[in-house]
């Protein structure tokens, strides 16, 4: 880890020690502008594969913006400009020739507010596979059951698959959304504050789910809850005002952070 400090302003450049053999996603000088405002100021980081990486920091610090770059959801915003590279498997996903549709099949996203479609539970899960060409009734039913089991939701909904997704509680809806993402068989799952709209009970069950997901997916989760980050993640990145201040193994960040600002945040000296 290289931390360079220039006079006055600390510029933190976190680079992996070796060419990213174990890393799924590598960003290089990623900058994002909303109009004139620079929301992300040159972030370079290597996110390891098949681990849970948590991004923490006060609100408005750019962690959600960063996350949305990883599956190019920022593209849908008007007046946004993105510079730098985001590499997956050695390929820059912002390359002009990369198909965004393919990218989003491989990099799924769960949002802060559970957002099931206004359809039945079954149709919500089947939506993704249907998009990507799965037609057979049997295949769809199998995907629905499989993903619902993985999301630990199957027992609760197996008798009401045809009912509206809105009949579920908030926590169940969020697990449904996670199952929906898994149904398209991604390699990476991005989660943007997935539990902030849920009660502690529901949060607990989703954290359990996350830990189970770890073995199969690369998970990047943005959270404003430090304790959640400490509970579930193996790596943590601390964002402040659009910069990635520190990125390291979770224990290191929480027990002995390198940067003063990280320590201040962890100790609750600012929100």
């Amino acid at each position, binding site marked *: 880890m290289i931390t360079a400090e220039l006079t006055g302003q600390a510029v933190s450049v976190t680079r992996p020690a070796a060419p990213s053999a174990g890393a*799924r996603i590598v960003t290089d000088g990623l900058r994002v502008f909303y109009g004139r405002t620079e929301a992300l100021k040159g972030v370079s980081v290597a996110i390891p594969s098949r681990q849970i990486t948590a991004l923490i920091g006060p609100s408005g610090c750019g962690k959600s913006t960063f996350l949305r770059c990883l599956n190019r959801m920022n593209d849908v915003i008007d007046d946004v400009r993105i510079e730098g590279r985001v590499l997956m*498997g050695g390929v820059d996903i912002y390359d002009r020739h990369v198909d965004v549709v*393919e990218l989003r099949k491989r990099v799924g996203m769960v949002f802060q507010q559970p957002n099931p479609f206004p359809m039945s539970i079954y149709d919500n899960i089947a939506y993704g596979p249907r998009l990507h060409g799965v037609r057979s009734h049997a295949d769809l039913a199998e995907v629905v059951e499989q993903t619902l089991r993985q999301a630990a939701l199957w027992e609760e909904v197996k008798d009401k698959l045809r009912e509206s997704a809105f009949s579920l509680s908030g926590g169940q809806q969020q697990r449904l959304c996670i199952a929906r993402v898994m149904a398209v068989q991604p*390699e990476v799952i991005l989660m943007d504050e997935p539990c902030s709209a849920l009660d502690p009970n529901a949060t607990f069950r989703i954290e359990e789910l996350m830990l189970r997901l770890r073995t199969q997916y690369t998970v990047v989760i943005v959270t404003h809850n430090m304790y959640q980050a400490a509970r579930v993640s193996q790596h943590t990145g601390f964002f402040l005002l659009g910069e990635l201040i520190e990125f390291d193994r979770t224990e290191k960040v929480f027990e002995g952070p390198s940067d003063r600002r990280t320590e201040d945040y962890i100790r609750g000296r600012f929100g």
Partner: protein
Amino acid sequence: MSSAADVSLHPGVTSRQARVARLQQGVAFTVLGLLSLSIVVPTVLIIGFVLVRGWAGLSVEFLTAMPRNGMVEGGIYPAIVGSAALVAVTMLLAVPVGVLGAIYLAEYARQGPLVRAIRIAILNLAGVPSIVYGLFGMGLFVMVIIPAMARFLHLDPHRSSPSCLLAGAATLALLVLPMVVTTTEEALRQVPQHLRASSLALGATKWQTIRRIVLPNALPGILTGLILAIERAAGETAPILLTGAVFYASAMPRPAEALFRPFMALPYHLFAVSTQLPNAPERLRWGTALVLLALVLGFNAVAIALRVHLRRRRG
């Protein structure tokens, strides 16, 4: 699930399914665009036709002279004046009731069956066919109310008639009433709640707050709605067909008597010129159409400009 070794995300490589999906999207978007174009084109054509062919008929004389020679020559001055007077009286009748009604809905009414009934009533009023308004205007104003007024005011029966400007204006006022109420209520609701709260906290009464704070603040929005109502009233024909519009008036009535006399109006004039005057010159027809269209679109332009200005002010 998948190997950690690589993400097969090469530039230029897409699955067949994604390529098909993109193709479908391209076709679909193109079709949508073309269909939308097929709405734009006739509109432009209609306005263009009226503009181009009507231009030849326009002249100072056309706009300021009385019709002559069996309505085939001269100008349409009385129709222009008649329309102006008609719309003015219409708004005089519609605005008080409409604005006050909107104030009730926005400021005083509480959720409940009464408010729901009022809203359904407004919705239905807005949907009444214009000819039915004409029938109603005939049945109520022309047959009942105006004669009663005439008796009460001792009007000379030779210089007044039940089918008159007032009847036409009252009918039109009913027609535009739902518009006035809806747009005014919308404008009132846009006024931020904290302004009202501050006023009340300073000891003002509810009505004082409305009069001094809410109404002035909502005024541009209200005006926009009123201009749209004027535009609507200026263009309607069916309601005035049966309540007092005439094709030929021997002379302009004296202003004092005009309320209770039949009137000429642009939309009705256009209708009559195109259906009842087989030997009218083309210029006359198109010229009338142009004047009417220009008037209506002019109001529209002002309303849109106001709305844009409003939105900009809001930030």
